[in-house]
């Protein structure tokens, strides 16, 4: 596609790269305590990389693309609303 961005594109200043993951089984997040069914896209930035790698290895998660369900929608006009960018996969 013509408008597809290259994979190694660096984020603009102020943009935050957050990898998101799709859970492949039911999970409960320690951050909000909610239970999420398989297929839900989640932001696991609260976990250390080591834990994420272990969960990936166990098959509990896979890398995904999309908006995570566990991040509250930022308020329109807030700093977060304009400064957040997600690049979920494709390393």
């Amino acid at each position, binding site marked *: 596609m013509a408008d597809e961005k290259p994979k190694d594109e660096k984020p603009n200043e102020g943009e935050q790269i957050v990898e998101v993951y799709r859970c492949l*089984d*039911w*999970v*409960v*997040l*320690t951050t909000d*305590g*909610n*239970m*999420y069914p398989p297929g839900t896209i989640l932001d*696991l930035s609260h*976990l250390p990389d080591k*834990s994420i790698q*272990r*969960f990936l290895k166990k098959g*509990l*998660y896979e890398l995904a693309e999309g908006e995570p369900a566990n991040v509250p929608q930022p308020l329109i006009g807030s700093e977060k609303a304009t400064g957040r960018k997600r690049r979920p996969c494709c390393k």
Partner: protein
Amino acid sequence: MALPDGMTSCAMCVQYNTATGTATWIDASDALSVVEPPSQARMTGEAYVFGEDVAVTGVGKREPVEVTVRGVFAEGSTTAHPFYQIYAQFTTACGGPFAVRWAPASCTTDHEVFSTNTVDSEVVSVTFPAGEAGSADPIMFEAVIRSRDITRAVWS
């Protein structure tokens, strides 16, 4: 194969919520003392024919599950103690939602949690606190939560 680590319920945690769906879970570990191991069964059936000595067996759908929780009674308001939350949901017309989940090894990353269905769980029985003159045991209460199933999840 290595011998598995034995687990105890020393650090088990129990939580409940009183709203449908993935609502706020409230920790009740300081009030509840027992979650009786629930079991869920499948419907089974059989028929016999004249020509054979054994049954023709059938297996059907999963039956509902009932989880019994027991706790130490304490007087308080509706927000202070799970007994009052349980009682409030029990006395709600047609039964208010009450889901319970428990993590045998603790509510921390990597550990597993088992939960009654968050859409369809109700209190169907309450045993009220009572006493006995010749006992020094703490006063307990008990409740039975009926649910369509139990979900296993992992804390992460």
